[in-house]
């Protein structure tokens, strides 16, 4: 029985800033924008955190399930490098505010930007041995940005948001190719979050590790899958997208053994890779949710998929530190319809665009989003202009004795 992704949604916040505005505000070299290959990045608001991002990504998936299917969610895994506590997991909050069964198994994983892919594979493995017909798992990749001018060019490429994946045995969005995967991991400190207040990154070390991992994990995939090659086995490719320029370099690296001309490489990139970059170019890096935003982008922006038969997509997940996996699955026009129905593109378009001064006003709040505080109140009234009365969203309102509290804003109330 095939397992995979039954439904997929992405929440990428309520605010964004254009990359040219970021470059101008920071006095960065505008000539570098083409290599970053991004036009906007999502920006967090003071009432948003990893819990609200996760819940706001997942609720639209659960709202479409009937009571029986909702009760069949037996596993909830949050993947985050934006943990709120060294012991209590983000998953425990998310479980509560999504109203999932108290018999649901909970887990939080941390493996940098690879975490959600490992969680997807773990969830599929769990479901394969579950005794419950139609059992489902919910995997949510959720993160926030902790970058300011100290991050240099990376500040403009860092996103904010969550990707939610409903996993089961009716994999409309992506049917995993069973046994078709390759992994590659080793110890390196290329980027990290050593405290709840800032990130560190070594650009060259991280890019080289990403590319070495892509080569290594695909070689392992080829060892497991007869006759696989990157040029002919996959009609589409989606790669973890810290920024589009790295994905373009990765594609060039993968095609080097084939001796193609530059125009041939460019044509292949435009057809098989570029559709995956449309949404990431509007959000910035969503950490382990990035690959699944790229998958949604393929499904909504590839001209090859409408009305077509099944096609194979190759997917690459990389997490700093480092760990990686190349795997594959099957998509078709039903996948397109399922993701299109979530309105991800419309949500991205509806974000409020900030100018640089507004961004600077929000930045001190964003940088404190993960800092433990015994007591705190969120001044919701100060930021209410960002909330649409017609859209139901979870917001962080206060913290009491280190326990965060949230409320539903909008027409629906608690699920």
């Amino acid at each position, binding site marked *: 029985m095939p397992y995979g992704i039954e439904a997929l949604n992405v929440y990428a916040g309520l605010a964004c800033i254009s990359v040219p505005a970021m470059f101008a505000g920071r006095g960065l070299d505008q000539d570098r924008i083409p290599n970053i290959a991004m036009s906007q990045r999502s920006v967090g608001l003071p009432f948003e955190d990893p819990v609200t991002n996760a819940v706001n990504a997942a609720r639209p998936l659960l709202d479409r399930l009937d009571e029986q299917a909702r009760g069949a969610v037996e596993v909830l895994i949050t993947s985050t490098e934006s943990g709120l506590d060294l012991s209590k997991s983000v998953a425990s909050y998310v479980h509560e505010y999504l109203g999932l069964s108290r018999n649901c198994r909970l887990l939080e994983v941390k493996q940098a930007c690879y975490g959600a892919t490992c969680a997807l594979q773990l969830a599929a493995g769990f479901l394969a041995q579950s005794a419950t017909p139609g059992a489902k798992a919910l995997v949510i990749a959720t993160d926030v940005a902790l970058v300011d001018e100290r991050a240099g*060019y990376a500040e403009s490429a860092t996103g904010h948001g969550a990707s939610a994946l409903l996993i089961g045995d009716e994999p409309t969005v992506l049917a995993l190719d069973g046994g078709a995967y390759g992994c590659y991991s080793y110890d390196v400190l290329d980027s990290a979050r050593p405290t709840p207040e800032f990130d560190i990154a070594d650009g*060259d070390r991280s*890019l080289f590790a990403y590319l070495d991992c892509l080569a290594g994990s695909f070689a392992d995939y080829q060892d497991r899958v007869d006759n696989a090659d990157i040029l002919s086995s996959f009609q589409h490719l989606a790669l973890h997208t810290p920024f589009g320029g*790295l994905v373009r370099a990765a594609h060039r690296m993968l095609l080097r053994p084939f001796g193609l001309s530059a125009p041939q490489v460019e044509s292949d990139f435009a057809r098989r890779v570029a559709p995956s970059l449309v949404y990431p170019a509007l959000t910035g890096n969503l950490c382990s949710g990035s690959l699944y935003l790229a998958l949604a982008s393929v499904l909504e922006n590839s001209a090859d998929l409408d009305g077509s038969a099944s096609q194979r997509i190759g997917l690459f997940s990389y997490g700093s530190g480092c760990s990686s996996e190349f795997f594959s699955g099957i998509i078709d026009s039903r996948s397109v319809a399922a993701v299109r129905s979530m309105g991800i593109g419309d949500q991205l378009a509806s974000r409020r665009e900030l100018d640089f001064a507004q961004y600077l006003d929000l930045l001190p709040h964003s940088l404190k989003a993960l800092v433990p505080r015994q007591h705190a109140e969120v001044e919701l009234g100060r930021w209410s202009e960002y909330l649409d009365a017609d859209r139901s969203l979870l917001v962080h309102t206060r913290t009491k004795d280190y326990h965060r509290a949230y409320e539903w804003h909008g027409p629906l109330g608690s699920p």
Partner: protein
Amino acid sequence: MTAPARAAVEATVWQVVGSILPAVPREQIRGDKHPRELGADSVDRVEIVMTLLDQLRIDRPLSDFNDLRDLDHLVTVLLASERN
């Protein structure tokens, strides 16, 4: 390491750096410069190393080039990779 071998690798490095950074005057591409000082962003630096490995037919992990000090050091690492 022989002088002619080093000269050949240097010539390839200078040519590749010049092709990826066409706006940089040739006289500024010197051994004591890091590609970053010549205006290469992170993608340019990846492209420089990948192109050199391709042209010199060297099969080494990119992470071997993590800690480059300058172009002279890049030449030295490439020569060591060739011997391996």
